[in-house]
């Protein structure tokens, strides 16, 4: 069985040769041998630099929102989670299906990613992508585990006293520098203008020494992705300060599942749970409900 990178390079150069696409957006080996970084191949020759392995975690669809991809037919390498992000972006009118050629890969799971351990959608649906590459050696696959087992931190935090929970997150948030890497790497943070970049009115204050502003940023962002998170885990991976942001999103997703039934962005169709509401849903604030 041929190594997936090889197949990938073949597909990519064919696409560029035939002129079916203008660009191939994938991954290449980073400066240090144990990382791979995003790469744009513009010619068949350049496709030689493409690779794919357990470090190719960046969600690439986000790049398509940038002007420098506008009007260019782009082939895009999508893992299961990436495909979900693409589908969401398409249904939210941010990406045109016609603008992209989807090279799906049956993802082996990224190295030490708790998400991948509990991932239910490693491979994009064969009929949804233009080509699906399989054959990543089973040996490299992470063993599948339950969401609970993969993310034990959530329960651990829930079990803490309120004081300890506060201290825990205070410590995490206070390292935040508002570098916005989590937002910029997030494949479902797709607003044209982010709320936190709004200048009139200014929703968030730029001071980096105020816990309140950190809380504001992370809570609001968690809300914006709560029902739209595709579980790629990039937010946590890219954070220079190692703030476990994914826990916030996954916590909210669990709550949503619990109260309003299971919904998976990029799998299930719109509307997302928070963008519609109905009489039959539970009421926690009524006379009987908790105050």
């Amino acid at each position, binding site marked *: 069985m041929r190594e997936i990178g090889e197949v990938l390079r073949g597909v990519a150069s064919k696409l560029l040769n035939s002129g079916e696409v203008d660009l191939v957006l994938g991954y290449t080996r980073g400066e240090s041998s144990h990382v791979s970084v995003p790469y744009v191949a513009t010619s068949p020759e350049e496709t030689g630099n493409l690779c794919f392995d357990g470090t190719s975690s960046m969600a690439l669809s986000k790049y398509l929102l940038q002007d420098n991809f506008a009007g260019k037919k782009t082939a895009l390498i999508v893992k299961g989670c990436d495909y979900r992000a693409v589908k969401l972006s398409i249904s939210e*009118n941010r990406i045109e299906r016609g603008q992209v050629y989807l090279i799906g890969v049956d993802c082996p799971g990224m190295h030490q990613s708790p998400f991948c351990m509990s991932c239910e959608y490693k491979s994009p649906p064969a009929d949804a992508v233009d080509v699906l590459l399989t054959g990543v050696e089973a040996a490299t696959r992470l063993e599948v585990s339950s969401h609970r087992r993969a993310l034990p931190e959530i329960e651990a935090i829930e079990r803490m006293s309120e004081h300890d929970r506060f201290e825990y997150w205070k410590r995490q948030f206070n390292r935040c520098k508002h570098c916005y890497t989590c937002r910029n790497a997030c494949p479902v943070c797709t*607003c044209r*203008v982010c709320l936190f970049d*709004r200048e009139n*009115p200014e*929703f968030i204050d730029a001071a980096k020494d105020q816990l309140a502003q950190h809380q504001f940023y992370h809570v609001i962002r968690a809300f914006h992705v709560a029902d739209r998170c595709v579980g790629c885990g990039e937010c946590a991976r890219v954070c220079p300060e190692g703030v476990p942001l994914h826990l916030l999103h996954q916590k909210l997703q669990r709550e949503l599942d619990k109260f309003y039934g299971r919904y998976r962005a990029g799998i299930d169709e719109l509307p997302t749970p928070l*963008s519609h509401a109905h009489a039959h849903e539970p009421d926690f604030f009524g006379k009987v409900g908790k105050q």
Partner: protein
Amino acid sequence: MKIGVFICWCGSNIKGTVDVEGVASYMRGLPQVVYANDVQYLCSEVGQSEIGRAIDEHNLDRVVIGACSPRMHEATFQQLMVSKGLNPFYVEMANLREHCSWVHTDKEKATAKAIDLVRKAVAKARHAIAIFSEQLEVRKRALVIGGGIAGIQAALDIADAGYPVDLLEREPSIGGKMAQFDKTFPTLDCSACILTPKMVEAAIHKNITLLTSSHVEAVSGYVGNFSVTIRKRSTSVRAELCNGCGECIAKCPRKVDNEFDQGLSKRKAIYTLFPQAVPNKPVIDRDSCIYFKTGKCALCKKVCTTGAIDYDMQDELVDRAYGAIVVATGFDLNKPQNLGEYHYGQHPDVITSLDLERMLNASGPTSGKVLRPSNGQKPKRIAFIQCVGSRDKHKGNPYCSKVCCLYTAKHAVLLSEKYPDSETYIFYIDVRAAGKNYEEFYEKARLQGAKYLRGQVSKVEPLGDKDNRLLVRGFDASLGEQMEIEADLVVLATSIVPKTDAKQLGSMLGISSDQYGFFTEAHAKLKPFETQTQGIYLAGVCQGPKDIPEAVTQASGAAAKAIIMFNKGQVKSVPTTAIVNQDLCSGCMQCESACPYEAISSEQVSERAAGQTRQRVVAGVNRVLCQGCGACAGLCRSGAMDIGGFTHRQLLAEVDSL
């Protein structure tokens, strides 16, 4: 920007608890506030001209009013702004009366709060944007829901004004509760004699269409342009063919309890609701009809000479558009089974006032004779119990049903005249006889021998004697002692309750109801006919207990409101609608599913970027459909969606000012 702040004393209503001068002088310290003053009555002529003068002198472009609730006088001040050539939404109100002076006593704290509230209003006014409303064409056709006296009156008034009306009635005939009454207080004229002419008038009126045996299935749209789906239930009788000869009824072998007579008599499975029913065409009650049960019988079909009987008749769904809707769905009377102490439902001689009403009626089950249901004998002693389920916080409703005192007096009078030898005892909490000639009528009842006993009844129980009479135990508050009355007949003044499905209709129409289920008027004092939903009006008991003249009054009032709108021919749309900032909008369209009015849909805009023109999707708002709830604005991630009068900027400014 030049802001003027005006603090109203409201006489002593605000000034009594809030240091109004202090508040005004604080405001003078705020940036952009160029004028601040306190005035005795801002809503008065004087107050208004004072504001007007200040606007001119200091050429103010924003005005902040510290006074009563905006729900009270916002319109007044918006008017003033318009007269000064300013946008009505450049005025902002701080609620210093309802939310401050009236609810607090500590002057210092109340003043501090007042300062906060006004500063908050100033902060909001600073970011006020001009808002305008659209003109909507009005569909000049009205729907009246409910064919009781209120509905009939409303329909007639609107029709007489020259506008088409559909009069919707759930039952096979219009007439409602009033048709069940024998006489009306205090004049004692026969209920039917004054009602039936109106029923007929409604039936023959060229502008009125009767829709009986029908109910509302769905409502959508907005003021001036509601679209309503009505279900005309199948009656199995083709009204257009039927000549109302009544042969079918005579021949029908199936007898069932007659609900119109409170089950005190029988009717056929094919029947008219009552002799003077309008329309006077029989209907088949499929649940009891033998043919529908067994497929046999079909006698009515055989005897019908016009072939009007049609067993295959189906329900019909009609969609109609209306400019205005009058809700006159009336009421029910609660069955006091839950009040075990009265033995109702356990002893046949414990009846409700409406039962008695039917007996007293010459065309009623007993042809006008009052008889004990248990043995058909004439009762000698009759005990009336008032407020059964009314004014009873624990087991009933806290409110007063309003009409019981008078109709009971009426019953006493009628009995004393029909049966001079009978005795009537009336147990009451107090007698409420406010109203023209009501007190006199109550007096008449006493003079004619009705014995009023002030005090509540603790128990009604069978005596167990041979003619099975009842013992009424009570407490005579005026004598301060227990008392017992042996009675042949006990009549309960059961309380008025809303129709059980009123709430359902309410949510279809988007009008709210109070904790009891009566529909809520737009303003308790000043808008008794309107609801919070423009173009929907209230008439009759569905809004709260009232007697016939009151119901008729409200009906005419509601009609007038509809007529006024029709005459204008146009209404203003809600000005405070959603606003999309299309530069910010990503076009994700998540707001579309959040909108309860389908007012949001996607639009294409073209923009130049990276040297090329591109189309992209953005959200667009239909300002006529949008009612300005803000569910979309609360949802929009980038804050591209906003609500006029309640923009992100304004709300943040308010929060920041506290």
